[in-house]
C-alpha cells in the first residue's frame, strides 16, 4: 500500500507571485526522498502541493500535474479531502490535538474516514499505530491522558502514529525534527527507516546530515535571489548528490561553500 508520485511541469503561485517554477520529479514508492536547500527556496511550499495543503493559504494555486500512481491530484472532480486522506502529513512543530487523549489523537483520522469502528478494532489499531511510531512502550499505560503532556519528541511520534493510523499511501514530513533535541531526532530518523518498508516517505530537512542518513534519493532546491522563484536544481541518489553532484550549485551547498 504505497504509491509513487510523478510531478510534471509544476508551477506554484501565491496570487500572481511565482513561488516555485517548473518542477519535474519522480518520487519512488517505498523509499525516502529528501528535499534540501536554503531557506525560502520553496521546498516546503512544493511539499505542500503534494497533498494540496497549500490550498489552505488564500491565493495559492498550482499549474501542472502531480500523479499518484498515474492519477492526477489536480484533475477535475478530485476532492482535496480525499487526496489528504491518501497522502498524510507531519508538520514542523508537533501538533497533537490538545483537547484529545493520546488514544483519541491516534484515532482522529480514522474516525473521519470510516466513521464507525468497534472498540476492539480501535484498540488494536491504536496499539498497531503506536507500535509503528515506536511510541507504544512509552505511552501504553496512559492512553487516556492528554497528548499535550508528552515531550516534544513523543508528541511528534504521536503525530506520526496519527498519520499512519489512516494507512496513507504516502507520508510527507515538513522538517519533522527541527523543533526536537538530538535524541528525539534520532528516534524519528530510526522510525523513518522503518516506515519506508511500507510507505513512500518524502521529507523536507534543513539538516544535510539528516538527508544523508535517512534518504535514498535527494532533491536539491535553490533560489536565484529574493523575489525569484525557487527551482529544483538536481535530483538523484543521495550518495551521488552528496559525493558527485552534476551541478556546481549542489556541490557548493552540500559542501557548505554556499552564499
Amino acid at each position, binding site marked *: 500500500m504505497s504509491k509513487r508520485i510523478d510531478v510534471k511541469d509544476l508551477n506554484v503561485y501565491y496570487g500572481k507571485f511565482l513561488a516555485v517554477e517548473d518542477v519535474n520529479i519522480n518520487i519512488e514508492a517505498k523509499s525516502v526522498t529528501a528535499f534540501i536547500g536554503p531557506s525560502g527556496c520553496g521546498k516546503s511550499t512544493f511539499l505542500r502541493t503534494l*497533498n494540496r*495543503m497549500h490550498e*489552505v493559504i*488564500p491565493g495559492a494555486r498550482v499549474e501542472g500535474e502531480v500523479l499518484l500512481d498515474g492519477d492526477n491530484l489536480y484533475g477535475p472532480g478530485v476532492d482535496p*479531502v*480525499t487526496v*489528504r*486522506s*491518501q497522502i*498524510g*502529513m507531519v*508538520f514542523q*512543530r508537533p*501538533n*497533537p*490535538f*490538545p*483537547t*484529545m*487523549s493520546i488514544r483519541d489523537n491516534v484515532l*482522529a*483520522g480514522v474516525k*473521519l*474516514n470510516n466513521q464507525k469502528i468497534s472498540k476492539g478494532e480501535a484498540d488494536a489499531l491504536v496499539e498497531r499505530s503506536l507500535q509503528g511510531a515506536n511510541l507504544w512502550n512509552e505511552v501504553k499505560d496512559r492512553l487516556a*491522558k*492528554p497528548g*499535550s*503532556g508528552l515531550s516534544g519528541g513523543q508528541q511528534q511520534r504521536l*503525530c506520526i502514529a*496519527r*498519520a499512519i493510523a*489512516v494507512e496513507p499511501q504516502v507520508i510527507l514530513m515538513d522538517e519533522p525534527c527541527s523543533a526536537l533535541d538530538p535524541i528525539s531526532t534520532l528516534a524519528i530518523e530510526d522510525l523513518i527507516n522503518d516506515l519506508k518498508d511500507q510507505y513512500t516517505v518524502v521529507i523536507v530537512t534543513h539538516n544535510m546530515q539528516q538527508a544523508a542518513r535517512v534518504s535514498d534519493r535527494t532533491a536539491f532546491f535553490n533560489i536565484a535571489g529574493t523575489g525569484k522563484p525557487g527551482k529544483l536544481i538536481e535530483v538523484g541518489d543521495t550518495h551521488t548528490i552528496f559525493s558527485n553532484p552534476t551541478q556546481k550549485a549542489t556541490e557548493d551547498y552540500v559542501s557548505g561553500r554556499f552564499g
Partner: protein
Amino acid sequence: MTTTSLTKSRGAGRAGDKVFSGAALAAGCLILAVLFGVALFLVVQAIPALVASPDKIQGGEGFFAYIWPIVIGTVIAAIIALVIATPVAIGVALFISHFAPRGLASGLGYVIDLLAAIPSVVYGAWGAAFLAKEISPAYDWLANNMGWLPIFQGPASATGKTILTAGIVLAVMVLPIITSLSREIFLQTPKLHEEAALALGATRWEMIKMAVLPFGRPGIVSAVMLGLGRALGETMAVALVLSSGALTASLIQSGNQTIAAEIALNFPEASGLKVSTLIAAGLVLFVITLGVNMIARWIISRHKEFSGAN
C-alpha cells in the same frame, strides 16, 4: 569592586516597578471593595423584608412566596434567550471566522458589534411595538397545534406581549455579545491544529468539530455566561415587552415577571418595607448571577487538562 556594583540598583527602574505594582494592587482591591460594598448594601437593606412578618409583604404570604415566581420568570426568560441565541451566535461566529470571504466577514463583524451598542430601551420599544404584534399569529398557531404541551397552552395572548416575546427580544440582545466573543476565540485557534485536522483528510466542518470547537470550548462557555448575565439582569426591554402577571407555565399567555423588571416597575412608587422587599429581590438576583458564574468556572476547570492551555 564587583560586590558593590551588583548590590547597586538603578533607582528609577525600581521606582517604576513599585508604582506599577502599587497601582495594580489598588485597582484589584478597589474591585473587591466595590463588590463587597454592593453586597453589603443589598444585605443590610434587604434584612427588614426578610425578617418582616409574612402578612406585611406584598401578596401577604411572606418574602419567599413573593420572590419565587419572579425568580422562575427570570430564569425562564434567560433560558429562552440563551436557547435561541447560543446556536445562532456560534453559527454566525463560525461563519465570520472560517467561512465568509474576508470582505464580508469584516463587514458582518462590524454590524454584529453595532447591535451590541443599541440601547436596551430601543430593543424594548421594538419588541413591544413591532415584534409582539407580528408574532402573535404564530402564538395562535402554537396554541392550536401544540397546545397539548403545557408551555404552549392557549388561549394565546392577543397582544403578543408574553414571556416568549421577551425571551426572543433578550436573545437578540445577547446575540452580539456571544457572537463577538466566540468569533475572537475561533480566530485564535492555532493554525497548527487546523492544519493537523485538514492533513488527516477532514472536511472544513470536520476540522471545525475536531480543532476549532474543542479548543474554543472554555471561551464559548464564558461567552454564554456573559450573555446569560445580561439576560438575567436586563430590565428595560422586559419591562416594556412583557405584560406581566402571575407565574404561568404557558409561554404564550400574558403573565410571569422577571426580577429586574419587577424592581424597575415598582421602585419609583415604593416606600418603607416595599423598598426593602425590592432590594431583597435584587439580592436574590445577585446570588443567582454569582451561582451561575461559579458553575461556569467549574465547567471550565473540569476539562483543564485537555484545554490546550499547556
